[in-house]
């Protein structure tokens, strides 16, 4: 009889936890919430520069053929010091790619247009914020409107029901003191680092792991898709906690005729020897 009562109690407890969609009480939930700064800023100021520090994705030949030539944000080959720019009558500068397209995009990249949110899963900004709540983890960056959501209380929907986007659709769980996030439903395009490629059904697994003292965070990214990769594309990005800092705002006055308010991609001042702002 006691065994029966015990079994029922255990079943009730387990069932209740499952229905509620919460982590079992025994799961260690790391405190990943906070402000984080990337540690691998070597080569900063040029995404191409940072990208050189990452392992190269091993793509199937037919996928590798889809990749554009190695460029640094359309400003020239990675490492190019003085990429050409096109000057407009109002003094603004256009990148060659934008100039070739006939001018700035009407909907992307202007002051306050396009959302300023988290464009994808890769973290290009030095400043990142994470807040982990019971049913959702949000990741944002300085000066952003909105951010990336990781749903903690639901299963991955069928990929056909996910509107493809750069960020895809993410579900997460806490496991062995780490946050494990699975993402799929991507818009076709390049990954942020290592010249990888993503398709709608490509699956990304991220493992967020805190150091024992809670001051360092490492995210291990693994891109997996047998139709894209010879083998999974894996790399790490490390961050340090910024306990005394604050999130920077990014203010842009679109009424001012200024290069940064006009061009649709990152600008280079022609008189800047390094091409870095």
């Amino acid at each position: 009889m006691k065994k029966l009562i015990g079994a029922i109690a255990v079943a009730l407890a387990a069932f209740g936890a499952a229905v509620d969609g919460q982590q079992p009480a025994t799961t260690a939930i790391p405190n990943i919430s906070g402000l984080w700064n990337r540690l691998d800023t070597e080569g900063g100021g040029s995404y191409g520069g940072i990208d050189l520090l990452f392992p190269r994705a091993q793509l199937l030949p037919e996928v590798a053929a889809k990749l554009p030539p190695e460029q640094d944000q359309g400003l020239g080959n990675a490492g190019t010091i003085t990429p050409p720019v096109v000057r407009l009558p109002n003094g603004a500068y256009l990148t060659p790619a934008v100039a070739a397209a006939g001018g700035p995009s009407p909907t992307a990249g202007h002051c306050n247009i396009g959302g300023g949110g988290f464009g994808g899963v890769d973290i290009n900004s030095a400043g990142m914020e994470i807040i982990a709540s019971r049913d959702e983890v949000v990741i944002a960056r300085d000066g952003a409107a909105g951010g990336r959501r990781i749903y903690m209380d639901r299963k991955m929907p069928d990929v056909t029901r996910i509107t493809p986007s750069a960020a895809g659709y993410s579900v997460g769980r806490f496991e062995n003191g780490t946050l494990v996030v699975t993402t799929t439903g991507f818009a076709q395009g390049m990954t942020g680092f290592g010249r990888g490629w993503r398709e709608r059904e490509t699956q990304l697994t991220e493992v967020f792991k805190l150091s024992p003292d809670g001051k360092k965070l490492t995210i291990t990214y693994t891109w997996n898709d047998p139709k894209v990769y010879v083998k999974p594309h894996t790399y790490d990005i490390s961050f340090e906690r910024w306990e005394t800092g604050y999130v920077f705002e990014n203010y842009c006055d679109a009424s001012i005729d200024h290069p940064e308010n006009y061009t649709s991609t990152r600008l280079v001042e022609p008189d800047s020897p390094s091409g870095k702002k």
Partner: protein
Amino acid sequence: MKNTTRRLIRAAAACIVATAIVPVLAQGRGGRGAGAPAPAVDPKDLSGYWELPPDGHDGRNIPRASLAAGVTQQKLAQISAHDAKGYRWCANLGLPNLMMLTRPLDIRVSTDLMTIMPEYSAAQNRWIYLNRDKHIPADEYEAGVNGDSIGHWEGNTLVVETTMFHPDNGILGIPGGGFRTPESKLVERFQLLKNGQVLQVISTWTDPKVFRTPHTYELRYARLLRDYEARPNAVGDPYDEERAQLFAGPPKQTR
């Protein structure tokens, strides 16, 4: 003995059914008044998606502000023109306008940090620091449209104090009248009502140069269903000429 066992099994089965049904009803899928009362919620769990009632009036108790004698009609007209230009050019709204948006706010709270994320490209995320009881020194802080917000719990109420606003950036007008300045101080009291289904935010502005007495108003947000997912940001495009016509004088037919 057999009867006792059967009763126990029946009771357990009833518990399992109840355990399964109650959370589903609590999510609202069962419709209004569809079943047993929702289980008690954590009174400090502000995390979720919150939305002001859509009619522009419900959920808002905004009395007229009592303005200081030094606030002239000319100054108010100047602020009004400033804000009209801000809307026209999709300026980053900032406080308090951000809290008035009619699209949902995604509010997430952790031990040390809280964010309020709108679904609008012209409203950058707001951050509230729960891990410090002092504002960042002014000489280290770059004033912004959302100011510097610090919060602490008083019982089940989260009290947030914000100051150090940017003098010009963003929308300066305050609901009920008046405007924010770098010297303005905003205190907000966040509290859950109706078993966590309503979020009450009582805001009090003080600024002796703007308000004769502290200006207090209240907003009440409804919690959205648990399965709500943030939509892509609504986009305000300052370079959209047809949109710009909306701000250019009396309405006229757009061809």
